[in-house]
């Protein structure tokens, strides 16, 4: 936490990998200043190639969205709503409310991960710390994880970028964590809007933060951690103001494996029907 200095979970060394502790990110937009240091640190540490120098033309967000070469993305959300106890209107009459919310988006590292289930090569694995990791040297770029992620995070990297053809997403800085280091984005976050730590600690802390914010006038503060859907919670979860839709987050994400049962039943029924029909036509029209 801010004020703890080098003893903060964002700064001190840890043994989470050796001790098989589930870790997570808790991202809190109420203290984010939109500096994008997390985006830069992620790119530098992981040597992620550039994702195109394009102007969105609509906000300070020129990154757009997560992708194969964008593993952290700071959203710049503009809303005509009041933020906490903010005084709005020229005379404080509440007219024309406006708020600016920054949120650093990242791979959610789902409890039930669509990409991991879908991966036919076993390239995508669950690590000791509960994160979802793509083994770049195993991935053959089939693209099935891309359509299986309910958050639209993972993508195949196009030519002519380095390592093109494989699927990429946030690694949760698995390489750093194995050496007891904190993920690059959390390490550099100047306001500790991104907090790294034990998942259970973070969840408790996040609930406390929501309570605190609500007491201070942030009536629409809530956690985005879909535990009641088939995703069963995410390891990189968020505090959001207002509805998840405005942040480009699905309100009710589902892991696609829940559709397997009905789809396979239909396929098996079709197979049996096909066999019977072909036999019947050859028998009756011989």
């Amino acid at each position, binding site marked *: 936490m801010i004020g703890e200095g080098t003893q903060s979970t964002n700064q001190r060394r840890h043994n989470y990998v050796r001790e098989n502790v589930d870790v997570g990110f808790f991202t809190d937009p109420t203290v984010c200043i939109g500096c994008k240091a997390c985006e830069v640190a992620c790119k530098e540490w992981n040597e992620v190639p550039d994702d195109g120098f394009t102007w*969105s033309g*609509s*906000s300070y*967000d020129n990154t*757009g969205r997560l992708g194969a070469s964008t593993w952290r993305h700071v959203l710049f959300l*503009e*809303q*005509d709503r009041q933020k906490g106890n903010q005084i709005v209107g020229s005379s404080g009459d509440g007219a*024309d*409310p*406006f708020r600016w919310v920054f949120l650093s988006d990242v791979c959610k590292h789902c409890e039930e991960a*669509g990409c991991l*289930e*879908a*991966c*036919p*090569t*076993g*390239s995508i694995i669950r690590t000791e710390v509960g994160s979802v990791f793509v083994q770049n040297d195993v*991935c*053959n*770029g*089939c*693209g*099935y994880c*891309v*359509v*299986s*992620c309910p*958050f639209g995070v*993972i*993508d*195949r990297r196009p030519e002519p970028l380095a390592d*093109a*053809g494989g699927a990429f997403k946030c690694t949760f800085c698995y390489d750093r964590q194995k050496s007891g280091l904190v993920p690059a984005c959390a390490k550099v976050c100047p306001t500790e809007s991104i907090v790294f730590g034990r998942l259970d600690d973070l969840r408790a802390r996040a609930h406390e933060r929501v309570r605190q914010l609500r007491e201070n006038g942030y009536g629409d503060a809530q956690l985005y951690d879909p535990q009641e859907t088939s995703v069963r919670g995410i390891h990189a979860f968020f505090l959001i103001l207002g509805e998840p839709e*405005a*942040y*480009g*987050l*699905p309100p*009710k994400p*589902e892991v696609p*494996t829940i559709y*397997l049962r*009905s*789809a*396979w039943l*239909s*396929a098996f029924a*079709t*197979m049996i029907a*096909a*066999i019977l*029909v*072909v*036999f019947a*036509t*050859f028998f009756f*029209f*011989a």
Partner: protein
Amino acid sequence: MAMSDEERLDELREEAWGKGIVRGRGVDVAGGPIPRRVGYYGQPLLKPPVWTWEIPVYFFIGGIAGMAALIALVSAVFHHLDRARMSILLAAIGAIISPILLTMDLGRPRLFINMLRVFKYQSPMSVGAWVVTIFGACSIPALLAVELHARHVFAGDLDQFIKIAAGSLVFASAFWGVLLATYTGVLLGATAIPAWYLHRVLLPIHFGTAGIGSAAALLELLGYRVAPLNALGFFAAGIECALWISLEMNKHGAADRALHEAQSGWIIRGGEIFSGPLALVLRALGFVPFAAISFLIGALLSRFGWLAAGKVSACDPEAVFASQEK
């Protein structure tokens, strides 16, 4: 507002360009320039499939090959050896082309073999990779054995052995073939894309029917104008008609509008018309080769349509929100 803000801005720009000075008032912005697009600046929530033309063509060819293996088995059972030979030839050709198409579509084609380092029943892609491989390992030797037996290359006990081997291999090809022709529906149905997963029951039926109709149509075009294949053609076209009606009736509003609207919708509809009503009418009128061609065009077209619809649906945040409404 009589004039949109953008139009007014354009007018002001023109005025500035022409006269070097602007006299009129600009645009009064109330409450700041709040983005009004759906979701976060209208950004896609999901990633569109990265697959290109190889995948729909693979669905088409794999469907034909798989169902041709079934027709080969049934022909052999009813002692139509000639028809069985041609059918198993189609199956084997498809079994060679299919993995080539799949490999071409990979981001890293050289690592195709990694598909076979694990088997994951919960991944239709993994199941499919194994089905294609096993189907090839059955149908290609099956073709060899059938030809050796049909041409009487060997005699006596060896020929008897080859006959048994041919029978078993054709049987195995038929089993893996029907799986090959239908699993592709599960492959699309068990994803996060709304237009696909909302129709996960229809997709395997549609792909299986398209496979069986296409295999029969191709055999007819190769000269096997026989009653059972004609009946299969009638049957497949009839089912395609029913599936088209069911797709048009079973709409999910914004959630699956990619299937009904714009270009992707028209490709699917075009495919259904060619393989459904048009093929049925042509066949009823006795224009069998035209019916067969129409069905094949429709089957190929609708596969392209479903892929196109998946791309549109993934990039449509409104579709994702609509599919997740409680």
